[in-house]
């Protein structure tokens, strides 16, 4: 019991430390909260405010290449809001069709990724424990190796003198090579390939929780395997399908590297447009306006995703 006593005697020291923080207006708790919050505020949230601001200014040949939004002249604050960039976006069909094409490509890619990913996730979830871990690792592994190099690998496979054409011609199935590189087809392949793990992992996480006895009950009650899948497995895995689809769709909309490397000059994806506005045309205000427009397109899917993940978090 004397041990406890000595401990109690030592208490004031920690109180002193707490007191010190309190004196400078911060509890240790507030400090712990403040560090990550401030970092993300400065390097994640405020940048969007800057983007929004610049999207409303006028391009100019200057450093940086835009005119200030406000200036003091003769003691009067002049604010020039320029919505010309946004008007420009709506007037030039290039942007409009790029948005449509981005959404179309992302949407179809998501669908294909689901078609390929669902059986894979199902197989992993139903595999014996040991195999399951190995298969899971096989899904995650490409995700960890260089994204750029994996996209690059497809060039060697898809190009005119590439692997597929070489194989088909060697087999005598075709005489002339099929043009696959620099087409939308190549872009689809690239996106599905790159984002497949994002589809598989949430699907797997959902399917692995599925109680096997539900399937047994359905089959006991007379459902064929296909009916069991359609009436039990599929409806129960909808949250996984939802999360996986959003995880593929959202980044695919803004994808730049894949259309740039695999797509042709007429593959108009919005990420590529933004990149070109910025790097080639050096039109920062229009690039910013494109970014803001893209954010508006993505804000609904992103919010859906957040909601889905919150629901999942509450469930587990």
């Amino acid at each position: 019991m004397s041990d406890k006593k000595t401990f109690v005697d030592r208490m004031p020291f920690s109180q002193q430390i707490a007191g010190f923080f309190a004196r400078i207006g911060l509890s240790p708790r507030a400090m712990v909260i403040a560090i990550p919050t401030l970092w993300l505020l400065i390097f994640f949230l405020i940048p969007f405010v800057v983007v929004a601001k610049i999207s409303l200014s006028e391009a100019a040949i200057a450093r940086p290449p835009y005119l200030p939004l406000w200036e003091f002249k003769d003691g009067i604050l002049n604010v020039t809001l320029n919505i010309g960039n946004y008007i420009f976006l709506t007037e030039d069909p290039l942007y409009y069709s790029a948005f449509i094409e981005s959404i179309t490509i992302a949407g179809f890619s998501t669908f294909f990724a689901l078609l390929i990913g669902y059986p894979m996730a199902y197989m992993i979830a139903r595999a014996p424990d040991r195999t399951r871990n190995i298969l899971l690792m096989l899904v995650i592994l490409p995700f960890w190796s260089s994204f750029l190099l994996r996209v690059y690998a497809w060039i060697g496979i898809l190009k005119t003198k590439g692997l597929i054409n070489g194989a088909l011609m060697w087999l005598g199935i075709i005489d002339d090579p099929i043009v696959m590189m620099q087409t939308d087809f190549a872009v689809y392949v690239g996106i599905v390939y790159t984002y497949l793990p994002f589809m598989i992992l949430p699907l797997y996480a959902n399917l692995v929780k599925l109680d096997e006895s539900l399937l047994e009950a359905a089959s006991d009650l007379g459902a064929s395997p296909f009916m069991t899948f359609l009436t039990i497995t599929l409806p129960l895995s909808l949250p996984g399908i939802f999360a996986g689809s959003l995880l593929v769709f959202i980044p695919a909309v803004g994808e730049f590297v894949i259309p740039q490397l695999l797509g042709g000059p007429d593959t108009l994806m919005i990420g590529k447009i933004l990149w070109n506005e910025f790097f080639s045309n050096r039109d920062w205000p229009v690039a910013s306006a494109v970014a803001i427009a893209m954010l508006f397109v993505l804000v609904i899917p992103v919010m859906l995703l957040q909601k889905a993940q919150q629901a999942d978090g509450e469930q587990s």
Partner: protein
Amino acid sequence: MKRRSLFITIAGILGFIFLYAPIVSLVIFSFNKSRLVTVWGGFSTKWYGELLQDPQILGAAWISLQIAFISACLAIVIGTLAAFVLVRFKKFRTRTLLSGMITAPLVMPEVITGLSLLLLFVAMQGLIGWPVGRGITTIIISHATFGAAYAAVIIQSRLVDMDLSIEEAASDLGAKPIRVFFDITLPTITPALISGWLLAFTLSLDDLVIASFVSGPGSSTLPMVIFSKVRLGVTPEINALATIIILIVSLGVIVAALTMQKGNKQNVA
């Protein structure tokens, strides 16, 4: 008994072939003497030799490794704090803000993140004179930010799974909060910290888009150099580089998986 239909098995296997065919082809053609993909010119390691003599690639690799190391360390600190705060502090005013900001970078298109960070750095330079120009520092800050988001997700799930009573037990046995954190919490989440760090590290090594926006002269990272080379078509040197990266990553993932498994086993007790 587990149900396994033939259809699922075949579809699954085809899926895995789809995932691995490009990677395997990269590895095989890195040993091809011929420059052409369709022609097997015999086994050769000459592309590896050329790779190791390419000062541009080696220099960029060194810069990338430095950036990845520092940004992963920063990311793990910010990510751990954010995860800890979100899991353990149930109520605080900026909760929604923080949880939104820590998950949004995961899905934000890179072009937007890159552009917005660049515009921030330009604006900051104008306002407070820092950072001076763009370069390694600005890349590190940018990578640390999205790395923190990934690290936070991993650490958060570990913290959520953690049995709170072992922390209470330590506190009950006389450990002060800070002591509890270092004696109990930290060892328990170590596997998550390691994989979080590795993830932030590889993501940084891999990033092309954000780095392109926020880099400056003399700070070209490895992906930027690779990108400028592969735009011109297939380069066997890059195949060799890819093979080396895949080898390192596979080893890393296997080691990480084993550590995680060990940690899980202990946690079951």
